[in-house]
């Protein structure tokens, strides 16, 4: 610590910290633009100018930039001095030369950092009377709006987009008064994290296009703390609502999970909440196939009847909350409850949980992933399955740069200097996957292998590290094995990433074995295993390892055991080929489906019950690191929509089920679940219960100046409506209450006096960039680094053989898509435009032998699917990649051996439409830029045995 003097007062401050950050920590208002807590200082905008005095005798002082000035013992500064204040006013005035006076029509207005800073410096009168620059805006895709005239050239966008997120298609163009931030040509921004520009830009250059087209100001939004349901990472979000519609999603800071940034699936993938396909009333299927709407009393009666006539089976869902799944499981009995994974996926997820419960390695959160100094990815395309992890990995490879900087005595916030110093020197990242991944550009080595070969590679490395004799002296992957061993053994904090993404448990087992081997060697190894859905891991924790899968349920139903099937928030047609699911549903006399939206499964239900989605209900979900987190309703669901837990609890009460007598509130279910399921015993700590009060008050979902409270429903009735009451949480559907340093799990929005933009976050943090004052949201339920006794000898599965496909057959390997592979986000406006057509990916040689070229059609297997061909020479040998979860590829299953033949009567898609808006991106060009440096390895294979297992 050091003592510094600011305007005559002495403060204690961290020596070496920059002065701007220090001032913000001390609660002093010092304006800034280009500095960002996650991106450090470059001193570009000159806004945080202060006066520094040489010593106590120095009366004049000199102007220095706060963000570039380290705190030193005894330093004397002045923020309030006339010279500094005048300087800061002049800077804002100069920025205003070209900034349009369009705040009333700007989407940033009301939460604009530039507005806040302009008011903060006290600048009021403009002297410039000349013309303002005008720019042509670009079409940057369906998600982000571009309005270049508002730019103040702080360079935050390119620093974030290129330096932080690894994008290549946004640049500062031209110079001087003409600087322009945009693309070389119009087109969709290619980074999966482009949406953060909306929050990073201090003014309205990059705004949320979906919001812009259906706009509400921040102060009129009703917000709630929520958790992204787009993947298993569990990023914290703050969705905003007005008029019963979800308007936008902003990042909710969580120091251990998402930090300041979300991926585009998370930010733009929640629009499905407003879908026209939402179910509003319960529907009872009539003989002719139409549905009669019911009210909730009638629906409950039908539910009760269904549950009392014959035995009931239940299918839960990895996208539904722990509580809803728990209630359905209680309703039907554990032995009749299937977790709702596909039959293929269920053992994979179950095994991932076991591996994590029994590993000696650390199960890292995202912040810990960023600390890794060597990373090995086995089989998982994290950018597309758990995107936020990919952004963290892009930071982890920079630890070398930070170490180099520390050696030179550079502070870690000296961003430009450090990047200049390190150039392209990075920590090693080694990727073994079935085909190219978007992280290849920062990888030291990227290698394409079939799934089992990836497991083989992982096992060989584990054995080598464990000191076992290499059993395969002629191992063809030997050079790779040796390189990885060297990389991992010279690291202090090696990280192994794998997951269910490539469709086989051999890979995850190999990853766990490798992490354990590293721990046995005394390394502080980390093991991150990715699961597919928001609550996949929670579902695995809820169910026993022998819980029936969909196939078993079908067998039992066919044998006449069950009368009724109850499906919870699960479109079963995404869980297997159509004919299998048809057979499953046909095996039951009655099918009750609780879901939020019309989908193929609800369309077959005998009784469809409208279930509230994540924005309308509360729930706990467990992320891939075993973090239980709670999401809260943003608004009350309309009509007869109810949270699933309400439907199920009501039904259980109707049935006078003994377990639910004492259950009244959502919190009671959480507690009952925690008591009943040991693995989930921690979930009550995920967030405070509904009795919690923040200094005696509820926490408001609305800002102080939320407007129209009495008139918002005047088109329906002129009488002032009663405010909705939230009995299930400490949050209020109102502006009354106290949003001052609430617990992290209960932070609905950020605002502080003078700080209307999201930059007000620092007022909620204990230290700028550090954890929230109210504590970090969520509770970790996988205690890392504590292996159960006797599990180091994890049963080996035997070396998976090399892939040797017979002539004319290909192994189907899954290719995940950030936009499209996840069910609900793909239905969101804007984002849905980025969902591609389903495809099959083969290498050029295979395409040639089949006589097809890119864009042609190909029939997979015995007409399982007819898909467009893409040529990709990075697909592992003898493998064919298929787009997971996209329309048209539903019947394809990972790791099945299939034949391919050219499709007859295939109509190639029309080439680029001529619309002005759709001037193409130069994507081909960029993908080439991504793989700068080394090319992917695609090793030749030895003559192996024909593999066993599912694929032949």
């Amino acid at each position: 610590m050091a003592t510094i003097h600011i305007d005559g007062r002495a403060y204690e401050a961290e020596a070496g910290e920059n002065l701007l950050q220090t001032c913000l920590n001390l609660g002093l208002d010092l304006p800034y633009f280009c500095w960002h807590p996650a991106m450090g200082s470059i001193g570009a905008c000159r806004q945080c100018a202060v006066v520094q005095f040489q010593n106590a005798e120095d009366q004049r002082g000199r102007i220095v930039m706060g963000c570039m000035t380290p705190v030193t013992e005894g330093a004397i500064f002045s923020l309030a001095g006339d010279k500094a204040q005048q300087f800061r006013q002049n800077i804002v005035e100069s920025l205003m030369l070209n900034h349009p006076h369009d705040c009333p029509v700007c989407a940033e207005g009301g939460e604009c950092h530039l507005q806040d800073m302009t008011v903060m410096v006290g600048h009021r009168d403009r002297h410039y009377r000349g013309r303002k620059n005008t720019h042509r805006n670009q079409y940057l895709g369906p998600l982000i709006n571009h309005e270049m005239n508002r730019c103040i050239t702080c360079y935050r966008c390119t620093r974030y987009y290129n330096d932080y997120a690894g994008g290549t298609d946004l640049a500062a163009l031209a110079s001087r008064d003409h600087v322009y931030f945009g693309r070389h040509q119009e087109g969709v921004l290619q980074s999966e994290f482009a949406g953060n520009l909306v929050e990073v830009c201090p003014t309205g250059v990059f705004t949320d296009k979906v919001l812009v087209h259906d706009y509400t100001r921040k102060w009129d939004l009703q917000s709630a703390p929520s958790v992204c349901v787009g993947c298993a990472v569990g990023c914290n979000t703050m969705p905003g609502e007005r008029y019963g519609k979800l308007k936008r999603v902003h990042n909710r800071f969580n120091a251990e999970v998402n930090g300041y940034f979300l991926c585009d699936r998370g930010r733009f993938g929640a629009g499905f909440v407003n879908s026209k396909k939402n179910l509003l009333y319960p529907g009872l299927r009539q003989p002719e196939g139409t549905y009669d709407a019911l009210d909730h009393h009638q629906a409950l009666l039908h539910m009760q009847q269904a549950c009392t006539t014959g035995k009931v089976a239940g299918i839960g869902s990895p996208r539904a909350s722990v509580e809803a799944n728990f209630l359905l499981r209680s309703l039907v009995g554990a032995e009749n409850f299937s977790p709702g994974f596909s039959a293929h996926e269920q053992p994979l997820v179950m095994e991932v949980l076991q591996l994590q419960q029994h590993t000696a390695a650390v199960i890292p959160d995202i912040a810990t992933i960023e600390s890794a100094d060597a990373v090995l990815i086995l089989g998982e395309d994290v950018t597309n399955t758990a995107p936020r992890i990919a952004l963290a990995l892009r930071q982890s490879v920079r630890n070398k740069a930070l170490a180099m900087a520390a050696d030179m005595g550079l502070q870690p916030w000296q961003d430009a200097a450090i990047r200049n110093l390190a150039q392209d020197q990075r920590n090693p990242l080694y990727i073994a996957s079935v085909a190219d991944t978007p992280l290849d550009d920062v990888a030291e080595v990227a290698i394409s292998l079939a799934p089992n070969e990836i497991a083989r590679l992982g096992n060989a490395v584990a054995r080598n590290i464990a000191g076992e004799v290499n059993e395969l002296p002629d191992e063809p992957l030997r050079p790779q094995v040796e390189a990885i061993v060297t990389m991992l053994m010279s690291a202090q904090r090696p990280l192994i990433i794998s997951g269910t993404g490539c469709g086989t448990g051999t890979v995850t087992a190999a990853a766990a074995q490798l992490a354990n081997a590293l721990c046995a060697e005394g390394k502080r190894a980390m093991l991150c295993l990715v699961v597919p859905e928001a609550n996949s891991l929670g579902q695995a924790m809820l169910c026993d390892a022998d819980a029936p899968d969909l196939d078993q349920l079908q067998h039992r139903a066919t044998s006449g055991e069950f009368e009724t099937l109850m499906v919870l928030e699960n479109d079963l047609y995404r869980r297997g080929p159509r004919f299998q699911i048809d057979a499953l549903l046909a095996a039951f006399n009655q099918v009750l489906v609780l879901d939020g939206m019309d989908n193929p499964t609800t369309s077959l239900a005998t009784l469809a019950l409208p279930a509230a989605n994540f924005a309308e209900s509360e729930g706990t979900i467990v992320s891939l690191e075993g973090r239980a987190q709670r999401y809260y309703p943003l608004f009350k669901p309309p009509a007869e929509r109810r949270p699933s837990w309400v439907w199920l609890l009501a039904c259980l009460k109707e049935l006078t089920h003994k377990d639910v007598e004492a259950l009244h509130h959502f919190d009671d279910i959480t507690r009952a679940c925690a008591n009943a399921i040991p693995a989930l015993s921690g979930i009550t700590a995920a967030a405070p219960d509904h009795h919690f009060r923040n200094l005696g008050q509820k926490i408001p979902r609305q800002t102080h100046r939320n407007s129209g409270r009495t008139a918002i429903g005047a088109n329906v009735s002129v009488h002032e409506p009663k405010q909705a009451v939230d009995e299930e949480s400490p949050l209020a559907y109102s502006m009354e209450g106290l949003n001052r340093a609430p617990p992290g799990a209960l932070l609905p929005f950020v605002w502080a006096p003078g700080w209307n933009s999201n930059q007000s976050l620092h007022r909620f943090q204990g230290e700028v960039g550090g954890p929230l004052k109210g504590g970090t949201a969520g509770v970790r339920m996988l205690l890392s680094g504590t292996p159960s006794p006797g599990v180091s000898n994890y049963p080996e599965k035997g070396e998976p053989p090399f892939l040797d496909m017979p002539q004319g057959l290909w192994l189907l390997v899954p290719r995940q898509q950030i936009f499209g592979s996840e069910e609900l986000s793909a239905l969101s406006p804007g984002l849905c435009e980025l969902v591609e057509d389903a495809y099959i990916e083969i290498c050029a040689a295979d395409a040639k032998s089949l006589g097809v070229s890119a864009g042609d059609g190909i029939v997979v297997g015995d007409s399982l699917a007819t898909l467009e061909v893409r040529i990709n020479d990075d697909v592992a040998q003898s493998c064919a990649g298929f787009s997971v979860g996209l329309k048209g590829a539903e019947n394809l299953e990972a790791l099945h051996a299939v034949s391919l033949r050219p499709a007859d009567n295939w109509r190639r898609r029309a080439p680029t439409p001529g619309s002005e808006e759709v001037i193409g991106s130069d994507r081909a060009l960029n993908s080439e830029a991504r793989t700068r440096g080394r090319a992917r390895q695609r090793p030749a294979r030895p003559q192996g045995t024909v593999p066993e297992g599912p694929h032949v």
Partner: protein
Amino acid sequence: MSELIPVCTDEQLSETELAAIDAEIAHVPYRASVAIDALKIVQAQRGWVSDDALQAIARHLKMSAEELDGIATFYNLIFRRPVGDKVILLCDSISCWIKGCDGLTQGVTDLLGVGPGETTPDKAYTLLPITCLGACDKAPVMMVGEELYENVDEQTLHALFGKGQA
């Protein structure tokens, strides 16, 4: 997104251009380091750098087109639009302004019929303002093609661009 992918341009760099660029690459640690030289080489051959040419250079240097365009547009002597056979760079910096460069700009416009930033219909000349040619002691100055003209006046302009000259 896929329908937004344009047909990739097949614009290629010529043998001469590639050889010259590769010769530069041999001297530097990163391919991207020769970006400016590569742009100059291509401009020397083609007079200006088109989008297609820029993309071809970017591919060769393994950069993104955005990165390279950021460099290309930063420098005012890398031309991203077609220019005439000769570029007239008329200095409008302080010394030249004091010595009456405004009149000279008007003079060129009168003689050639083009304003700043424009190219004559016969593609012979493009008129561009420039900030300082480094010869303030002989202001006003002007460059036409590779040639520097000092103490420019109406006569100089007439001699260069007058009827029968241009």
